[in-house]
């Protein structure tokens, strides 16, 4: 029985989400490092990135808190419910959301946390990519 029907769609969705989140975090990194022009980003990119990240984190923290029926992708689940307590992540992500709402620059450790999340999403995506297109 083929898994192609499900996996081909899943791959596309994972890539779209990863692209949005990755570029959003990259834009805020660029802002923090004063590299907006070097990365050829629009000045308005940071504002759009804040909105995109805020929406993503709202969904993520709701899922972490068990408030939705959504299931975290495996790699994200490993990151957010692993060694570091789930409650710590909920608290940290909440602080990031508040900073985003206020248009504040994120602290280095906050950007590092978001980058960890991007890495986890990327591992999930790369795993699905390999499942479909990896060498046998």
């Amino acid at each position, binding site marked *: 029985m083929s898994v192609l*029907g499900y996996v081909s769609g899943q*791959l596309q969705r994972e890539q779209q989400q990863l692209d949005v989140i*990755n570029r959003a975090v990259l834009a805020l*990194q660029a802002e923090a490092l004063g590299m907006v022009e070097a990365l050829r980003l629009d000045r308005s990119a940071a504002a759009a990135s804040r909105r995109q990240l805020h929406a993503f984190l709202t969904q993520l923290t709701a899922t972490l808190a068990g408030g939705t029926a959504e299931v975290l992708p495996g790699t994200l689940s490993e990151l957010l419910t692993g060694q570091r307590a789930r409650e710590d992540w909920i608290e940290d992500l909440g602080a990031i959301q508040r900073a985003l709402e206020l248009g504040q620059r994120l602290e280095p450790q906050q950007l590092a946390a978001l980058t960890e999340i991007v890495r986890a999403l990327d591992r999930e995506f790369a795993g699905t990519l390999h499942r479909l297109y990896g060498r046998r």
Partner: protein
Amino acid sequence: MKAAELRATLGWLDTAVASLHEAALRHPAVLDRLETDLHRARAHLSDLDNLVGIGHPALVPHAFPILHTLELITNRVGVTYLPALQHQGPAERLVRGLVLCAARAAGLTWLVDVVVRLDGPHAAYVAYPELPILYAPPRQASSLVDLPGLYHELGHAVLEYDRTTSGGRIGVLLRSTVTQHFVELARRAGPMTPERRAARESRIAEAAAFWTEARLAEIFCDVLATVVCGPAHYLSFVDLAFRYGRSPFAALASHPPVAARVRACEQTLTLPHQREPVVERLRAAWTTHERQHQAFHGYDLACSKSLIDALVRASLAGISATLPECHRYAQPLAHAEEIGTRTASGTLEGFLNDSTVLLVEVPERYADWERGALPQCHRLTEMASGD
């Protein structure tokens, strides 16, 4: 290094796609999409070059998602779509016509084009749900057997289209059906010790977690195929389930147990169809087969009849909401002696159900009948595909 490799790959893909002259005539929307993909890929490659060129340690991790996106695009164009478009012959065009007939009956009004590959088991590539690739075995161009499997595969395109345009209403409906079922089950526990309650709740949570998005998708696709094809899909699936080779209660990583899927198909049939002698014969044969295997305790909890029936109802509601032009097959089955002597029903699904009656009741007549029925089905496909 990877950027250089990808640059070379993109160059090759540009040339290969540009040389698809015939495909450009027959599948212009697909070619447009692939050219858009390659254009996006070049933009991603430029971003990657820039990031790598800057080389700041805080920014380098962001290169990997871009690299993987480029791998997806080059694989999708070069490994999936390009070979499919390069191998479009008369047989592929014929089956494409059959798929377009099926899509019309299923109400997929948003479908723009379909590419068919006749080199593998039934499957669908639905990254672009309005431009899917449908896979079928080579014999599909010369036989109606197992054709209902393609209706199931169109279901994956429906789910993906629903996810991209409506946030996945069908998925949400199926997920909430599972959640509600197990919440209610947990609530119904009578008096018991805390330890027993905790153990029960743990088993219920495990049963709920069994229903991954992938497994729910398969149930939906089975329901859609049965709605549109009627008993023809029921036979096709029961036949597949008999050939499964493992316990009907065993689950694959991404599929529910076939026993659960057979029940879903059966419960989807209209009541008159459920009472058709052909369907009753199939059901009796399947029940005998099931009784030869043990259903383990986990199966009864995860795949109870009440949950499967609830998932069927949720799937039907999802179909009503998202495919308003889906045509439910409700014609009574013909008597075997009428088939071949009367005017054909005029729909592909009518032919598929005639084939079902013959395969179950007078299989020795099937080959001759199919030889006569196929040209009539091909005329239906000419109307559907405009070829």
